[in-house]
């Protein structure tokens, strides 16, 4: 059933595509607060599980229709997290490469855009040369909700919320990269136009 719905959505999506795959690039910078509620390790509660996120990356506009466009990005996310277990403080610095896919809906006659999508990322550290991804929870998918406001010079102010979508992932996977994040940032659209008429 899920597959059929996905196919219908895809059909709808492509049927409304203008056929215009104009490339639009952008630079993304976001920062924010991240946390997890009710986290435990071997039945001991982790207190004050929280952190700061710094997300820097590059976006690419894939498809555009009359009322929306799709954006694929590649970002490097650094999480500075901390918490307490057994009255002992711990800190962690974690780096993850993320792959956000966003569906962006510009609000007509305003400078506002609303976006929703999913962020795919690795959920475990890469310790050894092993590309088989043998951990069942090697991947994480976050739901993403974002609002953007066009400031000027193709610069957007972004405010986002993300939450882990895979509910069955055990708690240890969220200690250094918490479940929920509130993000604020800037997005700068770039145009790499080719000037063919340029003379030496």
């Amino acid at each position, binding site marked *: 059933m899920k597959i059929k719905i996905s196919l219908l959505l895809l059909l709808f999506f492509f049927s409304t595509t203008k056929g215009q795959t104009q490339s639009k690039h952008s630079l993304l910078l976001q920062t924010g607060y991240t946390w997890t509620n009710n986290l435990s*390790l*071997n039945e001991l509660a982790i207190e004050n599980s929280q952190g700061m996120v710094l997300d820097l990356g590059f976006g690419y506009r894939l498809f555009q229709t009359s009322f929306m466009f799709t954006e694929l990005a*590649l970002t*490097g996310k650094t999480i500075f997290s901390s918490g307490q*277990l057994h009255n*002992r*403080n*711990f*800190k*962690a*610095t*974690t*780096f*993850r*490469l*993320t*792959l956000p896919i966003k569906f962006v809906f510009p609000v007509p006659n305003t400078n506002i855009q609303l976006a929703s999508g999913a962020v*795919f*990322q*690795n*959920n*475990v*550290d*890469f*310790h050894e040369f092993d*590309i088989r*991804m*043998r*951990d*069942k929870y090697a991947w994480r998918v976050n739901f993403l909700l974002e609002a953007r406001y066009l400031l000027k010079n193709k610069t957007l102010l972004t405010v986002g919320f993300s939450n882990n979508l895979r509910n069955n992932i*055990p*708690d*240890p*996977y969220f*200690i*250094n*990269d918490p479940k929920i994040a509130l993000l604020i940032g800037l997005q700068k659209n770039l145009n790499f136009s080719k000037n063919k008429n340029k003379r030496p």
Partner: protein
Amino acid sequence: MRIYHFFLLLLIFSACSKFSDDLDLISQQTPTLEIDTDLPVINLILNKEEFEEMTSRPNEEIEIEGSFSLYRQQALLIQNQKIEIEVKGGFSTKFPLKSLGIKFDEKYDNSDRSLINPQRVLPNHSLDKIKAIRLRNSGSDFKNTMLKDLSVTQLAINAELNVDLTYGEPALVYINGDFYGLLNLRTEANTNGMAGLYEVKKKDVTLAKITTQAFIKKDGDFERLDRLVQAIANEELDFVKSEIDVNSFIDYMIFESYIGNTDWPHNNARIHAIKDGKFRFVLFDLDKVSWLKMDKSPLQIITNKRLIKVNKDEATVDIITDLFFLLYEDTAFKNSFWARYQFLLDQQSLAYDKFKTIVDYNAQQIVPLMPLQIEKYQAPGSMIEWQIEIDKLLSLFRERAEVVRVFVENR
């Protein structure tokens, strides 16, 4: 390479984290031989240069001589026993803390449990005479929990399964009085180990091991081993049933498939026979259980990685899988296999709660000493990472147990 392959590789390779915690606050012990611990403390007196040479070339089977002492509760119970020592293991030899095989000059009389004192010993096994022990670095679990293989084996012991296995307990090991590391003191899974368990001489044991490379006849009656392999290949069911301890085989297959051992049956399998007795199976190297493929059914685990074939003159070396499916065609065996599976599940002897009790006990034993290990080897990197790995082990085991329960009940 397609674009999504590029992104996939980037995602895989770009993941790292660095933990830190208040290690100083909990590292209150100095690693001397008089350390206050309930664990056995082993001191190996070895020639320093010879030891360094041996550990720097771990795959060359260099054996050196030395002496062995052991303390329990700060009392010296074993003093200067002559030993031969060598680096053991395959993949795990690359870790700075090596697994060491220790062979005593004479069989050690362990009837007072001074050398090795596991919580429980199966009624058909003896630990009274020990020729050799292994100080294990926990294999591929070295950087993680340090207690996975030991705890999973203890689950099989507590369930009183009809299998042969290795016994053990965590131990602190020193070389010439200097702290070497936290290792697991284990009995052996080889010919010496089986001879000890059944109180027979080494020459009375026929043993072969199955690795990813080959079917290796180690000791004893090689013709009998060849005949068994040939009979499995030729599907001679009656002969095979007459040579195999079928009840032991059933328990062995149930346990390995229940725990989801993904480094098996193509590897880490051994069969042995005492004198003219039937072939039994040795449970060992369980450090890759409940790790991946947890959603697989028991039969899918047994079928896992049927990749290896020997030369043209011999039958398949994927002997465990072939043997199982040969016997599985027999209705009596098939019914016995599933009836035993259901019985063990109903009895709750392999349940998550039982496993958790074992893991909690082992973790409690080594938790005061983990800071020493972390300070010396940064493996794991911090106490919080060690606790994360223990929680993952328990979480993944619980999922595996549920997957198997649902499968067996609905099959």
